[in-house]
């Protein structure tokens, strides 16, 4: 049997940092308001780099860390809801940037669960025995989908990218998985609506901007997602405290605190970096994982067991328990 394992992690964020005070200069908000409600102090906003630029940097870092030639990569999946274009996919642009001429590539759209869905998909590709090495990258330039005159959403999001190299292994690393969606609640978090428009169609609404029903999404995260995580841990038959760390999507520290309580695991096991990046959607979990590797929390030697959980637009939510 073939299994998959995460063998490298990397991240990249654009240089430009926009603080809460910078935002207060262009909209009616304050550092105090933003920090107390979200925990966010600053976010990275791309001045010139596209989503594929950010993802491309991550891909190159992964190859460098693994001492791999790009030609050895079998597939690239980019999870994003802010692609450079529909065609070519952001993954195709990354392929071109790094010269991965033997890879097949595609983008995966699952909002803030995108990285988790992509990683779970990649695991199955490798487990099929047909592919041995893949790059799975979450990358967003959310700044281009934010309505900068809407202070209820403009303060929340940031740009960035993170990813992993997944390789074939003879040992099982992916221990448990729970992937979920509920399209009936999809209107609670929307962006990038493109309506019908042709000489033969009735025009329907277009709206590029991200819009969120704050309360509905808050309830969804602390209630449905916490429950899903608890169930996954119980189904695996381990005690929640046996997990070394839980890497949750970095949307809001109040949500993280509440979810930690509901899941019933000590708060120290939930690393957080939304204070520096804001909500980077599909990039949020891999950026956090990469920083945790850099600061020594994660060792990549197979000795730790972690839970990764993404949740957001769709609605979608997905959790993985992996040995790392």
């Amino acid at each position, binding site marked *: 049997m073939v299994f998959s394992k995460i063998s490298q992690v990397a991240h990249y964020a654009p240089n430009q940092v926009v603080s809460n005070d910078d935002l207060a200069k262009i909209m009616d908000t304050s550092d105090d308001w933003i920090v107390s409600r979200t925990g966010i102090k600053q976010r990275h906003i791309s001045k010139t780099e596209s989503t594929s630029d950010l993802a491309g940097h991550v891909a190159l870092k992964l190859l460098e860390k693994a001492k791999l030639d790009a030609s050895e990569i079998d597939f690239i999946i980019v999870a994003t809801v802010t692609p450079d274009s529909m065609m070519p996919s952001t993954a195709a642009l990354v392929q071109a940037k790094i010269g991965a001429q033997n890879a097949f590539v595609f983008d995966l759209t699952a909002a803030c669960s995108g990285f988790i869905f992509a990683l779970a998909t990649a695991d199955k590709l490798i487990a099929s025995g047909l592919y041995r090495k893949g790059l799975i990258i979450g990358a967003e330039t959310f700044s281009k989908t934010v309505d900068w005159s809407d202070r209820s959403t403009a303060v929340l999001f940031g740009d960035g990218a993170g990813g992993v190299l997944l390789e074939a292994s003879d040992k099982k690393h992916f221990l448990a998985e729970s992937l979920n969606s509920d399209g009936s609640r999809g209107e609670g978090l929307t962006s990038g609506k493109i309506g019908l428009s042709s000489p033969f169609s009735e025009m329907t609404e277009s709206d590029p901007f991200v819009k969120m029903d704050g*309360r509905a999404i808050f309830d969804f995260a602390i209630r449905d997602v916490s429950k899903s995580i608890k169930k996954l841990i119980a189904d695996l038959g381990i005690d929640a405290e046996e997990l070394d760390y839980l890497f949750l999507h970095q949307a*809001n520290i109040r949500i993280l605190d509440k979810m930690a309580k509901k899941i019933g695991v000590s708060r120290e096991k939930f690393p957080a970096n939304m204070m520096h990046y804001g909500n980077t959607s599909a990039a949020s979990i891999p950026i956090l994982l990469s920083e945790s590797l850099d600061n020594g929390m994660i060792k990549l030697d197979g000795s730790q067991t972690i839970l990764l959980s993404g949740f957001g637009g769709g609605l979608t939510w997905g959790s993985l328990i992996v040995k790392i």
Partner: protein
Amino acid sequence: MAVFEKVQEIIVEELGKEAEEVQLETTFDDLDADSLDVFQVISEIEDAFDIQIETEDGLNTVGDLVAYVEEKTK
């Protein structure tokens, strides 16, 4: 347990307040509660009483919450 006592208990637990600070006339402002605090309290009340609270509009005091719950659970 009466509705008021349960609502009071939830607010004490969620917002870290003393019971004496949570009376029928107490407003969310009195409790220094921001919108997320309100969401949290409402969410716990929904779970505790097995009801759905459609909107937080019009729910400004503890008394408003108690009246709403009593209406929904009668």
